[in-house]
């Protein structure tokens, strides 16, 4: 009996030692941004479902001054702390060094030049320019007006990389097909202002754009609203019109108004009006980070920069709009993706590279 009790206690200790408490700290966009806060939380939930004894908890940051106290609180309560967003970088580095026995995961956070990364900190960033390139190429192929738009939140590096990649995709399309598709650029100076996003998008539609990339966190929700509102009005359809009617109207009119989602698959937010979403596999990166934290020896400390070759970025499956995209464009896109995976195309990530970007030598084998 005594032995059984000892064994039971040991077994309990053995099992409980597996428990891993994950605490995610959102950036100011908060949960429900339908962007990378939601994407990260989806990764935490995936870990809770698929990994043994993983518990998840979330702390919402209301403003930037919350980052340090929230991360400190999370480090005191959890085994794994997840910080989300570029703006949290300094706070995350600071707190990770203070709590060496806790694992930290930074989503969309990169080290500054020469910065030492503590070995309890894993950073995941994404090659946004590669994802933007694919979206820009499809948008250039789909525009009927020869103008497409871009609405950014703050002009921070990841957003700028999206913009450069998006423009590079358009540039590639122009060079390959001899077209002159132009890109209108606007920044809302906020990630939390859907009204501003809507206003900028409507202005870009007025200036001739018919597809606008919402690269602005929660501000981007306004871009999608604007696409739906303008599209409905253009098609003469009510808000609750079924998808079939929206698609039929597009074919009938031969043109329409679209938004492009960002970070996660946002196509569902306005089916038929969101052409596609330019995505980072935030949920997968988060899951991998948590999975690696199950043992210190597997923890993916350091900077992990994921691109097309890692399947870390891409575009959504276009569940509602794939029928609108000509097969030729789908095939070209697949070929460009294969070139990127083989390293045969160098997608620009800054203005200088974009300036000297040359895609005119790409020949499709069909």
């Amino acid at each position, binding site marked *: 009996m005594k032995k059984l009790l000892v064994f039971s206690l040991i077994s309990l*200790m053995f099992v409980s030692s597996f428990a891993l408490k994950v605490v995610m700290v959102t950036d100011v966009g908060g949960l429900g941004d339908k962007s990378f806060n939601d994407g990260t939380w989806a990764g935490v939930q995936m870990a809770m479902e698929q990994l043994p004894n993983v518990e998840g908890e979330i702390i919402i940051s209301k403003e930037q001054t919350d980052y340090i106290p929230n991360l400190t609180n999370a480090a005191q309560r959890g085994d794994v702390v997840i910080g989300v967003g570029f703006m949290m*970088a300094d706070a995350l580095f600071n707190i990770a060094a203070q709590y060496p026995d806790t694992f930290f995961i930074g989503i969309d956070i990169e080290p*500054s030049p020469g910065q030492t990364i503590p070995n309890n900190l894993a950073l995941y960033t994404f090659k946004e320019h590669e994802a933007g390139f694919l979206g820009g190429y499809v948008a250039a192929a789909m525009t009927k007006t020869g103008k497409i738009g871009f609405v950014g939140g703050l002009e921070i590096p990841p957003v700028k990389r999206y913009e450069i990649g998006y423009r590079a995709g358009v540039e590639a399309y122009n060079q390959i097909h001899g077209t002159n598709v132009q890109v209108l650029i606007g920044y809302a100076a906020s990630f939390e202002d859907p009204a501003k996003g809507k206003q900028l998008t409507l202005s870009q539609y007025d200036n001739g754009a018919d597809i606008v990339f919402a690269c602005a966190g929660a501000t981007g929700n306004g871009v999608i609203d604007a696409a739906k509102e303008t599209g409905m009005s253009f098609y003469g359809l009510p808000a609750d019109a079924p998808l079939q009617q929206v698609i039929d109207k597009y074919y009938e009119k031969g043109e329409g108004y679209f938004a492009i989602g960002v970070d996660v698959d946002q196509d569902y937010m306005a089916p038929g009006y969101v052409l596609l979403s330019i995505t980072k596999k935030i949920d997968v990166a988060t899951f991998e980070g948590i999975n690696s934290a199950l043992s210190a020896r597997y923890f993916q400390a350091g900077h992990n920069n994921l691109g097309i070759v890692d399947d870390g970025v891409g575009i959504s499956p276009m569940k509602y709009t794939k029928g609108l995209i000509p097969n030729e464009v789908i095939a070209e896109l697949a070929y460009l993706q294969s070139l990127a995976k083989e390293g045969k195309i160098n997608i620009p990530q800054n203005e200088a590279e974009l300036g000297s970007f040359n895609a005119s030598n790409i020949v499709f084998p069909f």
Partner: protein
Amino acid sequence: MKKLAILLIIVFFSLTAFTIDVEAVGDLFTTLIQTYNEEKSVSNEEFDSFFQELSNLGLYRFYRTQMIGSAEYVDRPTNVQTYLSQIYDNVQSQFTTIEEKLALAGFLVYVQSDLSGEQITQEMIRSMPAYFATVQDYTRSLENDALTYFGNVIIYSLGIVDTAPFTDIQRFESKAEILDKRFYIYEGETNPEYNKIILENKESLEHGIQQLAQSGTTGRPLQIAIDQLSYNYVNSLINETNEQIQQVTQMFIEEGRHGVNISFIRIIIYAALIIVTFLFLRKYFWVTVLSMFGVEFVYLLAFYNPIKDTVSSFIYGSYIVTFVFLFLAVLLFKSIGKKIKFTEKVINFSIFFLVLLTLFVPSYYSYDLLMEKNTQFDNSTFETQLLNDVVAYPHAPLHKTISSLNSHLGSEYSKVNTFYRSTFASFLDDLLNSQVLSNLQGSSVQTNRDGLKIDKVENYRGIPFDFSKEVTDFVNSSEITERNIYNEVDTLKVQVHDVLKFSDAEFESKFMDTSNQLLRSTDLIDPLLPTLYSFFDVEKVDKINLKAYNTVFGTKIFLLFFLSLTILVIFEEKFVKYISLISMYFLSILSFIKVTPLEVFSQTGYPIIHTVDYTINYIFGIILLILTSLLFLRYLHYQRNK
């Protein structure tokens, strides 16, 4: 009793295996601090390379400020902790044991606290990359060693391998496999400390292994489960190490404590005296202020350290800016006022002008701070850092300018290319399709007679009209881009000049190589290259200008001069006026005196650098003398007209 004895032995051995000699860390830490504090007068060969790098850090920030200013060009600039940790990386090969490495990392925290004038805190220690990297590497290697040992025993017990450093354990039947054996094969000798822990916990360990065998877990989940099982026996050792590290950090805080700077108390006393005198002895208010001025004069001149006395530096820094601004504004009004006499206007304007000059005229010329005179800076970490900051990093000013230039060139090429390949081709297509033209071959154009008849005016005039709008847009856009391109070229010229005039041949060569790589990233820039390369022919400075406030001694003169000026302006008593004028004359004369070595600020929070081979710019002292004389004249003039 027997079990207790075994337990004590286990604890003893585990302590020896995971022990950090805190006393040894403390001894080396205090030795390093002593050497650091005596370094100005004593040469210590053992730590020469460290102090050389520390001096290079100061030089790096100094040159950086000279070349591109003190502004940071990135949202998250590199901090002094990272730079100090770079020194650690360079010299750590001389420090082999964990005790030495910890002492060096702790010492760097001491240097940081010394440079910033702040006391060492736990947070400061833990944020130092050299410290957290050392501690984490050490604890992780101990942890890995123990986990691999226990892991090897567990997979032996599970029948995955047939060898282990400890084999006196029950073996179980299982089909378990692991994917990555490198973490579970212990390469070292059998370890008696680990063996004793296993023996002591054999029953529970075997039970855990049995559970693993029965669970059917395999692959990576099994690896994780093995590690988790091992942690149950390794954790106590890890915790012990963490406690020792905690003792070490506590020792850093205690041994590295600077004497508390109590000089700020004088400010409180001044405030109390001012209030008391103002309320009860207002008649003698000027006496109190004059006495305070006297004390302050002696304190600033003899004891004030602008880096360490942060309270005084903050107060005087705020005071100088406010006072100079107000004083100049009043003088300017008194120089242009209608009812003011001409002589007075001339004097006021001259004072206004001379005060401005004191901010811009150098007071010293240094020769040994030239980069070519500091050969130890060549090929150092901080020379590379300087190169990164001015040109190599994407946020570096020159990098951004070149990127922007390349971007404009690319954009122009793209627009021109599209115009001729697409817009122009469409124009011709439209003319052919509408039968305005019948054939087009090279430059040979054949028109269609029917297409040029008046009923086709919408075609033969409408198409060119639309095209003309596109041509106008194209030309306007091209003109704007051309202006942008040449603006960037002009900016580049200035930036290259600012960098190269302070460079030695070595740095110039590296700078040109890096710039060339960036410039050569596109062939579109080729036509501009001869012009751009001509910018690199820059005459070097033969001395470095140091303004008064760039040096410790000059700052003292500067502060006291303006403090005296304040007293002169505010108080009406003749005695106060004369005392302040005498002190201003005295300070003017002090600016002609050569202090060796002259301490030069590199940047706040970074090491001070020294110059020995320098000359005094007498013009600065003469300006102070003339300024004082003009103020004296102004006072006499005022007295006469009273």
